[in-house]
């Protein structure tokens, strides 16, 4: 590995970011992908880049499918689930996601809801989501789900998440609620990205209780993490 690339990988992992290194076995040419940018001398086709991206999100290493001799090594941090809204569903979702291996962060500027009593053992940030995201630096292994039911708080979170490399963005609300939300976000200039939002959020498991909705959200996040958006 070239020194410059190694130092970039060191810097990325030391900063808590995720990165993947692709090596062409024939000649040792390499490139590094940090979820947003590519560095290094090995040129990959668009399709191959997308495949490496999916492997990084899933923290998988191995031969790149469909390529002759490209080896991918993923250095991914544990996946993060960032829950916007210290709501009833969040009280179930946070511990479930922690058990499933996610680093869970709950954000809500409404201090009355974002209390340690309601979320024991959970990282709570009582700030506005766009400000909290600046500190958290959403990356390729981050998932964001908005659950406040208040567009005043959900919208800025979605705007920030859609501008980030987060692998999953979901928003609670009915189809009707989401249509209005999509119109607002389109007006805010995000028309090309609104389609990334999973809404209504979660897999259709049929349950409606908060704890069941939490399961469906967690299931969808895991599905997208391993299968990609096409799933």
């Amino acid at each position, binding site marked *: 590995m070239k020194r410059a690339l190694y130092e970039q990988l060191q810097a990325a992992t030391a900063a808590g970011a995720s990165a993947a290194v692709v090596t062409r076995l024939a000649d040792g040419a390499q490139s590094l992908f940090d979820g947003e940018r590519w560095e290094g001398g090995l040129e990959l086709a668009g399709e191959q880049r997308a495949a490496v991206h999916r492997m990084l999100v899933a923290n998988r290493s191995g031969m790149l499918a469909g390529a002759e001799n490209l080896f991918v090594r993923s250095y991914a941090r544990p996946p993060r689930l960032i829950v916007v809204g210290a709501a009833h569903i969040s009280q179930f979702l946070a511990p479930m996601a922690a058990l499933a291996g996610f680093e869970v962060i709950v954000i809500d500027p409404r201090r009355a809801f974002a209390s340690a009593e309601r979320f024991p053992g959970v990282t709570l940030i009582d700030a506005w989501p766009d400000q909290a995201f600046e500190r958290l630096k959403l990356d390729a292994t981050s998932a964001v789900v908005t659950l406040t039911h208040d567009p*005043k708080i959900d919208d800025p979170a979605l705007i920030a998440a859609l501008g980030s490399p987060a692998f999953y963005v979901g928003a609670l609300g009915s189809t009707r609620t989401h249509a209005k939300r999509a119109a607002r976000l389109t007006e805010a200039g995000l028309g090309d990205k609104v389609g990334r939002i999973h809404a209504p959020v979660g897999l259709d498991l049929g349950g409606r209780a908060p704890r069941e909705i939490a399961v469906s959200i967690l299931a969808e996040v895991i599905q997208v993490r391993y299968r990609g958006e096409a799933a």
Partner: protein
Amino acid sequence: MRRREASRGGAGDDELSASRIYHEAIKALATAAIGHGALAAPDGRALVDNPLCGDRVEMEVNLSGGRIAALAHQVKGCLLCRAAASVIGKHAAGADPGDIERISMGVSQMLEKQAPPPAGWQELDAFVPVHGHRSRYRCVELPFQALLAALRAAGEPR
């Protein structure tokens, strides 16, 4: 996934009352965001929030001869909160803490008791329809509380 949201009251009622409170003048004031920003060297600063809805107002003031020489605010909040901060941005310069105290009281009386809006700050008329929507009073009052707190901070020895 198909799921209906639990409705809090009739959706129709919500929309009707929302259109009464969030009329054009309120939207225009909120969008104008008069006074939005930060001061280079504020004499007083305060951050107040509403823990139930998440609205946050950061207010900074500079005083000169006991009167407001400059102010700046940054609001994370609903339309009502942003609109009220905008009215402050338009009118507060030149006022002394006593004036602001009086205007702030006048705003609360207007909201709670349907008193006429305080004289001199004409744009406060836009908030008259908020009377009766008790849960929203604090949205309008929050920027005034932030300004009063910033003025108190400016008066304290540093």
